[in-house]
Each structure stands twice: as structure tokens, then as C-alpha cells.
């Protein structure tokens, strides 16, 4: 497949925004339960939600560049019964709404206490909205990943590992972003975010490596024999029916050398996982704000390369019909 930059930005920015919001709400929940200090993270809930919302808006804007007719985008919520893309279109604005309400409640202070826990902890309105938003965040990971994982003949994508990758890589970048933000907004809580960012980065590396191994062992189901229905071991395409390009030759071939694709695999393994893991560990050990800031920048760049590779790696069966120009 040809990687589209709109979709690369869409999926990486959304993933980081969702992860950042999950990190903040997780922190507030754990603080309420007494696991973390009750007031250490207060300073970053509002601004953090603002950054998460900015990432989600950035992803949404990028998605419009993928559409031929962006002015009709509102129609795409119609087929939620069957289409994961439609479900994503519904969940994303709902999540943006909850992130906005959560951030606004913390920044304006209009945050009534809804209930009290037996220990005396106050469940405020923002946390209730935040927990709903967390469910939506996870749902959005599933929707985004299932857009790709549900296409059964794109076998590189048709795997539960796709859902695991989108979830874990989004969570990793979101928690890394939270760690970088915490160094200035809530310095005492940076180790909490960095620790979980490191854990998600390691888990994401394991799951992405598993999908790389799986995909390297795939054998094509469709062949030229089944594509044209001729049962002979030797078939050669002489002509694809036209000499210049068409949508079929542009959309489904990445057009890059296999050596570049192979080297980008190592680039993203380094930039999305190895280097951020080292920087996060360094940030945990030394409390260095620079290390955590570098970690999120490197990881986001690495995840964009990862997403490019994700698309380039997928081999569409229609390509069997376009092997020879003339």
C-alpha cells in the first residue's frame, strides 16, 4: 500500500492524544485511591488535557486531507453498524468533547464534587467525565486499529496484533508526552508517567516485534493462478491493459526500493522503541527534563516511520493484476 501522510499523522497524533488523556485520568484516579499523592498532579490535569485535545484536533485536521470530498465528511457517521471507519468518526468527536469538558472543569475550577469515597476522597465531575473519556480513548484505539485489521485479505493487518500495536504504541507515546509535560507542570509526578511510558514502550516493542515476525512468515493466499483462474504453474503478465499509471498502480504500490523499506524497519525500531526507552530510563534515573522532552520528540518521529512502514508492508492482492505494464 502507498502510505498516505494524512493517515500517518492522523493515527500517530490521535494515538498520542488518547494516551496522554489516559495518563492524566489514570493519575487522577490513582491519586483519589491514595496510591499517588493527592495534589501532586493537580497542576497538569487541565493543561495536559489541553495538549491532548490539541493532538486530537491535529489528527482530525490531518484526516480531512485524506478525503476527496472533505465537505461531505459529516456523512461518514452513517454506517456505524458495519463500518469501523464510521465508528471511529463517531467516537473521535465524543472523546474530544469529554477531553474538552475534563480540561475545562480543571482550568475553570467549575468542578463540583459528585460523591465521596469511604476514605473521604472526592470524586469530582471532571473525574467522572475523565473515566468516560478513558473508555472512549480505548474504544478509539480499537476502532482505528480495526479499520485495518478487519480487511481479511490484507493479511499483514488482519491480526489481533494490529489492535495491540495501535493501543500500546499510542499509550507509550501518550505517557511519554505526559512525562515530558510533568517535568514543568508537576515535577514530583514525572517518574510515575515516565515509568509507565517505559513499560508501554517495552510492551509495544514486544508486540510490534511479534507482528514483524508474524508478517515475515506469511505466505500469500492469492496467486496469479487464483487471480485469473488459470491452473498452470507458469503464468506471466504481458500487459496490464494500459501503459501509463492508474489509480490501481498509484494507490497500492509504495514505489520505494525494498532496501529502503527494510532499513526503515530498523529506523523505527530504534526511534520508536530503543532510543525513547533509554531516554525514559535516563529521565527516571536522573530526573532530567531534557531527556524526557527528547524522548517524546524521538518517539513521535519513530512512530511516524513505524506507521509509514505499516502501510508499505501491506501487500494488496490486487497488485497481482498489475505486475507488467506492457
Amino acid at each position, binding site marked *: *500500500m502507498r502510505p498516505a501522510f494524512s493517515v500517518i499523522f492522523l493515527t500517530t497524533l490521535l494515538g498520542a492524544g488518547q494516551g496522554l488523556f489516559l495518563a492524566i485520568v489514570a493519575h487522577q484516579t490513582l491519586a483519589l485511591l491514595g496510591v499517588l499523592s493527592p495534589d501532586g498532579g493537580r497542576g497538569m490535569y487541565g493543561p495536559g488535557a489541553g495538549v491532548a485535545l490539541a493532538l486530537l484536533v491535529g489528527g482530525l485536521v490531518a484526516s480531512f486531507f*485524506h*478525503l*476527496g*470530498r*472533505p465537505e*461531505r*465528511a459529516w*456523512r*461518514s*457517521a*452513517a*454506517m456505524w453498524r*458495519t*463500518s*469501523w*471507519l*464510521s465508528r471511529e*468518526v463517531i467516537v473521535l468527536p465524543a472523546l474530544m468533547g469529554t477531553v474538552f469538558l475534563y480540561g475545562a472543569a480543571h482550568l475553570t475550577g467549575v468542578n463540583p464534587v459528585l460523591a465521596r469515597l469511604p476514605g473521604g476522597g472526592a470524586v469530582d465531575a471532571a473525574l467522572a467525565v475523565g473515566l468516560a473519556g478513558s473508555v472512549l480513548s480505548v474504544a478509539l484505539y480499537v476502532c482505528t486499529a480495526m*479499520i485495518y485489521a*478487519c*480487511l*481479511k*485479505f*490484507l493479511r499483514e493487518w488482519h491480526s489481533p496484533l494490529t489492535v495491540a500495536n495501535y493501543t500500546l504504541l499510542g499509550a507509550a507515546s501518550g505517557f511519554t508526552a505526559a512525562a515530558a509535560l510533568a517535568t514543568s507542570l508537576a515535577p514530583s509526578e514525572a517518574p510515575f508517567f515516565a515509568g509507565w511510558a517505559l513499560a508501554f514502550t517495552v510492551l509495544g516493542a514486544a508486540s510490534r516485534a511479534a507482528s514483524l515476525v508474524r508478517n515475515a512468515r506469511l505466505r500469500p*493466499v*492469492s496467486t*496469479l493462478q*487464483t*487471480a*485469473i*483462474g*488459470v491452473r*498452470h504453474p*507458469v*503464468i*506471466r*503478465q*504481458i*500487459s*496490464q*491493459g*494500459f501503459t*501509463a*499509471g*492508474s*489509480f*490501481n498502480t498509484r*494507490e*497500492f504500490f509504495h514505489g520505494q526500493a525494498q532496501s529502503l523499506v527494510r532499513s526503515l524497519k530498523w529506523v523505527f525500531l530504534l526511534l520508536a522503541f530503543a532510543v525513547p526507552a533509554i531516554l525514559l530510563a535516563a529521565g527516571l534515573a536522573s530526573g532530567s527534563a531534557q531527556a524526557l522532552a527528547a524522548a517524546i520528540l524521538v518517539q513521535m518521529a519513530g512512530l511516524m516511520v513505524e506507521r509509514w512502514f505499516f502501510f508499505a508492508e501491506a501487500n*494488496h*492482492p*490486487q*497488485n497481482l*493484476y*498489475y505486475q507488467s505494464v506492457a
Partner: protein
Amino acid sequence: MTQLALVIDLNVCVGCHACVTSCKEWNTSGSAGPLPDTKAYGEQYAGTFFNRVQTYEVGCYPDTETVHFPKSCLHCEDPPCVPVCPTGASHKRKEDGIVLVDYDKCIGCKYCSWACPYGARELDDHNRIMKKCTLCVDRIYDASLPPQDRKPACVMACPTSARLFGDIHDPESEVSRAIREEGGYPLMPEWGTHPANHYLPRRKTRVLIHDDELERADNPLKVDRQQPRPAKGEPTLDDAVTW
């Protein structure tokens, strides 16, 4: 339930591309708007087509066969391109099984083209929406045409009658009989899409001739196992038949 479809006879197709050009001509002139080309007379031209004819060589030289392979939307009975469409623009008609795109609803997200294993859909770069074969839905029901002309443009154009059109759910239709009796098969059956369009395979045409058909056993000239030999100067049999 009706399922309209094409049955394409690969044994007869000569690869003349008449179906491609007549399809383009009909569908670029219709009420659904043009099928535009980009730089049609330039070096890097491109265009949107519903139908393409490809050519394959099967076997190893010198034992090869050339197979011309017309390729268009197969109007699958379980089309994977329909459920993925977020707007409902891509749909399969209940009344005749034709898979269509509602050009007024399509947002051009290309997801349906990703979901089609056959590469049957092409994005129209000018109108920025997805397009595909309509089985000439604006022609086959046109009551102003004589009944024999209510067929897709590609079927009308085919000089060798390699393309048959009809209802594959009617067991007595021409297409059902062709599939049943001539070994019609679907493409990429492994994905469970149940394409409505079928292809008829190449067939070896052999004529069996026995020796007694080449040489008449009771030929009176050969009763005595020898030809009557004319005397010198007399006309031969060859001369006689040229008189």
C-alpha cells in the same frame, strides 16, 4: 432474487479492447457525469476506466498460450467493499444485485478500494469520488431502447460474443447455463466474496479424424489396389477433371 452479472468467455476473447472503449464512451457520456482523463494526450496520461483488458502468457515457450483477460467489477454477492463504506455510498441493490456507488454521498476516502481484493474500483481524480462498473444500470432498464439493446455497452461491443449478460440466479438463463455447462468459475474464491461475474475457461479444440474418414474405404479406384493407368497420350484423370 435477481443477480445480474457478466460471464466472460476467455476461450473467445481476442483482446481487442472494444469493451474498454465502448464502456468508456457510454459511461463518460451519461447522466452520472464524465469519466475524466488527466493529460489524455500527454506523456503521463491517466484516466478512470470501469473495465480493462489484460494479457497473460501461460506456459513455457514454445508451449504457451496467450490469455486475454477482461477485468471489471465482479458485483460480488458478498461484497467486502460495501460494509466498510462509512457513508453508505457504496451499496448493493436488492432488486438486481448490482454494486453501485452513490456519487452524491461518496467522500472519496478510498476505504472501499482497499477492501476490494480485485482492484475493481478507481478513484476519479477530477470529481474526487470513487467510481466503478455499474453494469450500465442506466442502459439495461432504458425502455426507450429496443429490448435487444438493453445490455451493458461492453456486451454490445464485443465482436466475438465473449461477454454474456444475464441473471445468474435464474437457472435457465444464458449465463447460468454457460456457467453450468462450460465450467464457469469465479476469481479468487479463497476470500469468500462470491463474485457474481464468472469466467469461462480456455478450452482445447481438437478434431478427431479416423483414417477411413481421410481415405474412402470403398473407393472404386482402389478396389484393385491400383489406379487405372492411362495409356501414353491419353488424357489423365487430372486432365479430365479440369475440363
